[in-house]
């Protein structure tokens, strides 16, 4: 099954799909689609990021989140401790000291090609849009399985509220429908972030690596990680030095649960039949035994 079929299935839900397809989250990597609408994504070139945090401010503006203080004095203290996404920050920039100096890495939702969070959501509150945006809406039941299933630890839950939401970057879905670039891309003063179709940004990433021998490690993070993501990263140092996990594998995360889901219809139809068959067999076997015993007893009486 290719990726579009996967989308169709997670898009159409139970109605209209056969049971076999229904439970199959699909297995394709990002690489196999050469035609058709491509996912939209962002290429992050960490060699260009200067750690100004204007993407954070823009993100807060666009999404109505509390605005961070991005003055130079604030930046000095902020970068001292490791940073993680929170329920009020869809994007944060971390600072890493490496052999090639300080490297700033803006992180946000990776918008996987086949997101674990979308596959995990029982009510399709987490959606993979045809354009690649992974968005959340209020059908959510708050089970937080998306948080468990996300290999990048992106979805955040508002524990402090009685009506809590899952908060995560949605690649500026609203702005996208209006034809505007994502806030962070718009705000970046050095174009460390560029937005485009995944094919285009992947080409651009490869071009940069080829054109600047020795500047980048020859790895585009997100090309194959977790089945491929719409956010791609370029780096001058091995990715584990700037806070990226290298052990996620290239298998799309929904595939981990696909064996179970595929076997559900089979088990559901075959087990009752098997149980009844075994039950009947045991019963008839016992009846036969009893009859023979009876006969035996009768013979004994004679």
């Amino acid at each position, binding site marked *: 099954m290719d990726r579009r079929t996967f989308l169709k299935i997670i898009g159409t839900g139970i109605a209209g799909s056969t049971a076999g397809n229904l439970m199959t989250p699909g297995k394709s990597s990002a690489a196999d689609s050469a035609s058709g609408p491509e996912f939209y994504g962002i290429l992050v070139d960490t060699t260009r990021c200067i750690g100004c945090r204007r993407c954070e401010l823009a993100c807060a503006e666009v999404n109505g989140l509390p605005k961070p203080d991005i003055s130079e004095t604030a930046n000095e203290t902020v970068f001292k401790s490791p940073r993680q996404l929170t329920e009020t920050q869809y994007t944060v920039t971390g600072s890493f000291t490496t052999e090639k100096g300080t490297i700033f890495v803006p992180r946000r939702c990776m918008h996987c090609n086949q997101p674990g969070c979308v596959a995990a959501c029982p009510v399709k509150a987490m959606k993979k849009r045809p354009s690649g945006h992974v968005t959340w809406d209020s059908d959510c039941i708050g089970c937080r399985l998306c948080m468990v299933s996300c290999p990048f630890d992106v979805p955040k839950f508002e524990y402090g509220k009685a009506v809590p939401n899952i908060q995560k970057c949605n690649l500026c879905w609203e702005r996208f429908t209006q034809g505007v670039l994502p806030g962070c891309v718009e705000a970046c003063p050095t174009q460390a972030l*560029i937005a485009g179709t995944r094919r285009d940004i992947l080409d651009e990433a490869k071009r940069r690596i080829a054109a600047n021998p020795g500047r980048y490690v020859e790895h585009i993070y997100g090309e194959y990680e977790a089945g491929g993501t719409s956010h791609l990263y370029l780096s001058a140092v091995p990715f584990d030095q700037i806070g990226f996990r290298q052990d996620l594998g290239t298998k799309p995360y929904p595939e981990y649960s696909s064996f179970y889901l595929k076997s559900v219809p089979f088990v559901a139809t075959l087990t009752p039949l098997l149980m009844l068959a075994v039950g009947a067999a045991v019963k008839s076997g016992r009846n036969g035994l009893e009859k023979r015993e009876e006969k035996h007893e009768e013979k004994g009486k004679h």
Partner: protein
Amino acid sequence: MSRKLLFLVISVIYLVLIAFGLTLVYSIDTSKPVKQTVSMAKDNKISIAHTEIFGRLQRPQVVFDHKKHEDAYRKEGCSVCHPVNDKKQVIFTFPKQVRGKGRKVLMKAYHDECIDCHKKSAAESKPTGPVTCNNCHKKEFARLRMNYPVAEFDFYDHNKHVRVMKEKFGKSDCGQCHHTYDVKDKKISYSKGAEESCYYCHDLNKKRGPEFAAITKAAAEKGLSVERISHQSCLNCHLEYRTAYEQVPNEQVHKIHREKVACNVCHPSNDFKHAASCTDCHIPLDCAKCHTGKYRTVEELKDVPRPDRGQKDMVSLDTRNARMKSVSFSHKAHQADSRTCRGCHHEGLRACASCHSLTGGPEGNGINVASAYHSVFAGQSCTGCHNKIKANKECAGCHYYVSAMNIETMNSKKDTCASCHAGKQMSMPKPLPYSGSVKEDVQIDVLAKEFGAASFPHRDVLNKLVRISNDSKLATYFHRDIQTLCKGCHHQSSSSAEVQMPQCRNCHMADNDRHHINKTRLISAYHRQCLGCHEKMEMTKGIKCSECHKKNTAPLEITQLKNQNVVRQNTSTILNAWHPK
């Protein structure tokens, strides 16, 4: 009753185990413990661990005090602990005898020699060392990491040895140290004019070409690593000359030193009954004297004459049948800028072309002469070495953005090639002139909104670049023309263009070009060029916003959703892909 007790005991055991486990689980500390690092050289101590053989150690390593043992056996000599070969050279290995291989054999050899000797000394009621496990394998050593600072026999040391040997001992025979090995005859020989570095044969970790590989193999079979042979050759010789020094009568020593050094140099705290050892200053024997942990820089080695092996000052690099003009290469200038010979001459002291032929071949490891000179990443090639220098902070400001001189990536131009391939001896160009004619300050105000205009000290910057260029021989040679420096920022301007110095905004538009995602927009062009250069040059100024900009007002909305959406909706082809009509 007993059953109840049993239950109680079992449940308590389980409770303790689980509670212990929980404390473990909750106290996992992922930050690695910082080991204490101790320098070996400081007090002549050696770590005995042999993790390459023992793997994970059962007991802590032993930190062996070599100085103590050396002093104790000053009279008896090194041969008490170290074996001696048939030339009466001490071989600096320990234990003396290891019969066979493997962990147990090695452990036994150590324990036998150390403990036996300690016991013997104890029996003779001499001062002795520990004989029980924990006194050698001390717990405190477990977290100790020994650090062995490097010792380098560089041009300075080489020159000093040549000079002292000649002046003091009248020996000008290089064969005392240098030799070659004949694999067929299995003999060591020396021939004048063919001296090489020890590393070519004795660096057992490096893969060499067929010629040296045969010798290295023979050296490896005998375990003659650089580490071992340098101790063997250096120390045996030093030991010999120490005796020579010590035999000099006191009057003569005083006569020599009286003029030159103060008394307390040899008689610390003016104790005239005893004197310091000659080896404190001459003929070093202590670890720290050679293992300084420092490499002398090119600058420090500038005035040291390089070993004379008959090399020419100017070499004409002319590959036969290559259509390129020959390169006139100043070996003299380049050797003065190198710390070692083997940095370039990676496979013996010979010409590059002796292995790397025009078309390449197995004798040159498949690398043809063009790659041998132009490979971007090889440290031995011309281009590779120049690129390394271009990565220095003085050069990186511009050169980070200029593609490396690579046959693949660069647009090879005649004048670029011709700067080396001149076919004649090139002279060093004149230093670039300091400019008074260019604009002094440039106001960058096209985008001024949230921040005020930036004032760019155009002339100062240019003059600084000129100074940097003039300070470096490499830069002076290649930056033949002030235009070269201009191109560092005005990267697309060319002498044949209609406008020689176009403005940034001529190409870079104010907004993101969504049809060409690679295209840099104006704000990024400024920031990447300015900040990138400042960062790469490790400047302290011009990094923070306020150092270039004045803040105008309260920040505007960074993302201007409302104004822009109408225009863009129809122009974006990207969007059309998902919203087909």
